[in-house]
């Protein structure tokens, strides 16, 4: 027995799930994995996958991998959402719904964690990877190996959270795992440990990405591109990465301390022994509030690009846009207490944070008006990307006003932890963040893949999402006012809430149809890719330099790095009938080599996390040593670059012009 517990830690036959829902979910994930593996073997694509994608340090490939993984996680989190909607629509009166209480708790905890950390963050880092180096005229990010490693840490976290379906259980303590509920005494299973190590690994990946992109934007811009000539998407990313750098270490510290409490018996957040559980809530929101701005700022950046491009006008108030971003960046660290006004910090503290919360709405309002003024008297070209903007600007404003209501501490005492709050933050994150990234994906898709997405299906996807969204979340505002609390898994029939919950459920199904339509749009567009081919590299009559290169963007991005003299450098060059760079500027360059070690590091991190969760200490040490040794092997290669000659570049440019590569 002793031997087994040393060898396997807390693992035993008891850990496999017994309820049919969880088991079914796990089996379908594993089955899907086996199916993909079988197809890869059948079509002999393993080598291609390994060389061209999994170990490739090209930022565009990494971006695509982020987005694929994020969409898979979005679907996983979406299934969780559908289960919650089914539960709340059916668990009334004598019926106790479709899920057991403990499954329901795990489902809402997993939904929040997955959607924020893997769906939203994944789409964000995906889009940033795709676009930022192209937009600032840098051939890659500052640290390509680190970039791929970040991705694999992110992937390790994603795998770990899905493992909890089949081995053990997931946290039932909500997406932020407040103590004392998340302490060992009240959550003795491995659920919270899964939560901790998932976020620890993915969070360090995000932090490394933050450092990487900040350095890239500060140090690797094209010559002549001063900060005030930088496109707004890159500006928004710069601000978001600044927030990552300041916020993510706090997350790492907080969950590490929770881990120490649970594993080594320290007293940081325990109810006894001199711990302070409200300190956890303060710390987690000192990360958590900047986190929501980390997600939304790049979406603001996307809209700034799209609105200017499709209005055929210079962006209105570029400088105020930049200052608004900077103001939000700074202010976002001074509002975190509004997540827990009910803590009882007193009127002065609550008053301060309430006012700061209202103030941060001002720069956001400035941005909304700037977008609208950009469209004013512009030649507006309706496009699926712009549809997402219209959905965003209306819904996001409604959600923002709901947020300002809750910024009033007195009102918040009523609305705290109600479904009104749930409706508010879903409005911000779905119609703000997700719509923004969908718009950005539609907009930059041709640059990466060489063909446009089907316009009609894009608009249908948009309508399904918007209608589904309104049906799914507007009833929650009302339910919140009626007194329904969040995470409720059963309510009395005489409250009369059921019709509203049913409407919300229908809305969720329509959103799911929207997801399906989005996938269908991909399939149809791929089949019609020759018809939708982007021959010029500039399908939207764009303004910034990423549109000056052929589509799909070649692996070296720019045949020669252009010199930038204007904010809309490409637009100005087009107006003057000039080329930004000519074939004579092309020289031999070096690009980063493939990095299989990144993949190995991801695997080591995954094993390390798993061993930590199950207290398999020997495996912890082995995986840690493997991690360090792999890193050493990598650092031994002092010139991890390979040459791309000017000849190769010119040959590739010719091929791309003739439609090669899609």
């Amino acid at each position, binding site marked *: 027995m002793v031997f087994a517990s040393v060898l396997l830690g807390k693992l035993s036959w008891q850990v496999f799930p017994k309820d049919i829902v969880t088991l079914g979910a796990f089996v379908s994930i594993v089955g899907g994995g086996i199916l993909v593996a079988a197809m890869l073997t059948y079509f002999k694509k393993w080598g291609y996958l390994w060389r061209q994608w999994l170990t490739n340090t090209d930022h565009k490939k990494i971006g695509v991998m982020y987005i694929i993984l994020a969409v898979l996680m979005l679907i996983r989190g979406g299934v969780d959402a559908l289960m919650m909607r089914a539960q709340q629509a059916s668990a009334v009166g004598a019926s106790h719904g479709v899920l057991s209480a403990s499954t329901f708790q795990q489902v809402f905890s997993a939904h929040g964690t997955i959607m924020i950390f893997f769906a939203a963050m994944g789409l964000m880092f995906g889009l940033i990877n795709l676009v930022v180096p192209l937009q600032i005229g840098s051939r890659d990010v500052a640290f390509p190996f680190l970039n791929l490693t970040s991705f694999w840490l992110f992937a390790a976290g994603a795998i770990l959270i899905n493992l909890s379906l089949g081995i053990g259980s997931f946290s039932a303590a909500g997406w932020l795992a407040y103590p004392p509920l998340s302490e060992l005494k009240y959550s003795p299973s491995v659920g919270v440990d899964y939560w901790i190590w998932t976020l620890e690994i993915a969070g360090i990946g995000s932090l490394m990405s933050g450092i990487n992109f900040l*350095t890239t934007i500060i140090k690797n811009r094209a010559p002549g591109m001063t900060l005030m000539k930088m496109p707004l998407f890159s500006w928004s990313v710069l601000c978001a990465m600044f927030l990552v750098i300041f916020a993510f*270490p706090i997350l790492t510290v907080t969950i590490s301390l929770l881990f*120490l409490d649970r594993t080594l018996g320290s007293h940081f957040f325990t109810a006894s022994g001199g711990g302070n559980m409200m300190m956890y809530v303060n710390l987690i929101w000192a990360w958590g509030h900047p986190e929501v701005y980390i997600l939304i700022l790049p979406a603001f950046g996307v809209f700034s690009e799209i609105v200017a491009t499709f209005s055929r006008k210079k962006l209105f108030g570029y400088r105020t846009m930049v200052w608004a971003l900077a103001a939000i960046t700074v202010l976002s660290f001074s509002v975190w207490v509004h997540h827990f006004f009910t803590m009882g910090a007193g009127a002065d503290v609550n008053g301060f944070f309430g006012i700061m919360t209202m103030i941060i709405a001002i720069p956001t309002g400035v941005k909304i008006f700037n977008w609208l003024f950009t469209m004013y008297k512009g030649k507006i070209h309706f496009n699926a990307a712009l549809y997402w903007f219209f959905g965003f600007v209306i819904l996001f404003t409604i959600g923002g006003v709901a947020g300002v209501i809750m910024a009033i501490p007195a009102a918040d005492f009523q609305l705290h932890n109600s479904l009104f709050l749930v409706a508010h933050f879903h409005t911000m994150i779905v119609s703000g963040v997700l719509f923004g990234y969908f718009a950005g994906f539609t907009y930059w898709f041709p640059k990466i893949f060489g063909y446009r997405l089907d316009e009609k299906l894009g608009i249908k996807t948009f309508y399904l999402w918007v209608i589904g969204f309104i049906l799914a979340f507007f009833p929650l505002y009302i339910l919140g006012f009626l007194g329904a609390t969040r995470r409720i898994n059963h309510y009395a029939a005489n409250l009369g809430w059921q019709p509203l919950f049913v409407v919300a459920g229908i809305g969720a199904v329509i959103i799911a149809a929207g997801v399906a339509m989005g996938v269908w749009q991909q399939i149809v567009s791929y089949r019609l890719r020759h018809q939708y081919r982007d021959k010029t590299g500039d399908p939207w009559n764009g303004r910034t330099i990423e549109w000056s290169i052929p589509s799909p963007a070649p692996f070296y991005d720019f045949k020669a790095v252009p010199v930038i003299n204007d904010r809309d450098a490409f637009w100005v060059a087009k107006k003057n009938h000039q080329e930004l760079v000519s074939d004579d500027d092309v020289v031999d360059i070096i690009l980063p080599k493939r990095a299989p070690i990144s993949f190995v590091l991801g695997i080591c991190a995954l094993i390390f996390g798993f061993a930590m969760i199950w207290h398999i200490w020997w495996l912890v040490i082995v995986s840690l040593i493997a991690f360090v040794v792999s890193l050493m092997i990598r650092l031994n290669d002092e010139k991890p670059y390979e040459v791309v000659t000017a000849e190769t570049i010119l040959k590739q440019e010719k091929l791309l012009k003739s439609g090669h590569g899609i």
Partner: protein
Amino acid sequence: MNEVDIKTISHKKLLNRIYKAEESKFFETASFGFFVYLMTDLVLFASLFAVYAVLEANTVGGPSGQQIFNLNNVLLETLALLISSFTMGLAILSMKKNHRNKVLGYLVISFLLGLVFLLIEMTEFNHLIAIGDSWRRSGFLSGFFVLVGTHGLHIMVGLIWMAIMFYKILKFGLSRVNIRRLTLLSMFWHFLDIVWIFIFTIVYLYGALGR
């Protein structure tokens, strides 16, 4: 030699040539990126300081800082670390003058002083655990062990890094890559020194004053 070999060799030459031209840019990017990393580490320590400040009074019947801190040891630790930071600075100066052996010598001294620091800290920790005042005892001790221990962990990483650097410079001399990495190491070491000054002041000196 066949054609393929010739091509590889000329490619290698080309790589070296372009790499050399880009070298100073890589150096600048790496130092900047590493500095940003250090700032994230600073936020990490700031969070731990905040946690310590919140928990400091929560001794729940256990000892307070005044009762367990041995300022003589702390003085020794501080001297060891400050001097090792100084010798690390000397190593960088020698590196700039291209004195390989001096660099190696200063690295050894810095390493040994760092080791002295770490040993004193481990002795202190061992002693506290032995008399039952571990991190399990109270919120205050949890905060103390984790704040000081995180710094100690960083010192340990720094020592391992120094040992590897020593080997690399011994074997390959002051190559460009080694110069770059030694510069980053010295940034790391000075940074830990600064964090220690805050630990020394806020945890030990302020703690020894009592309330």
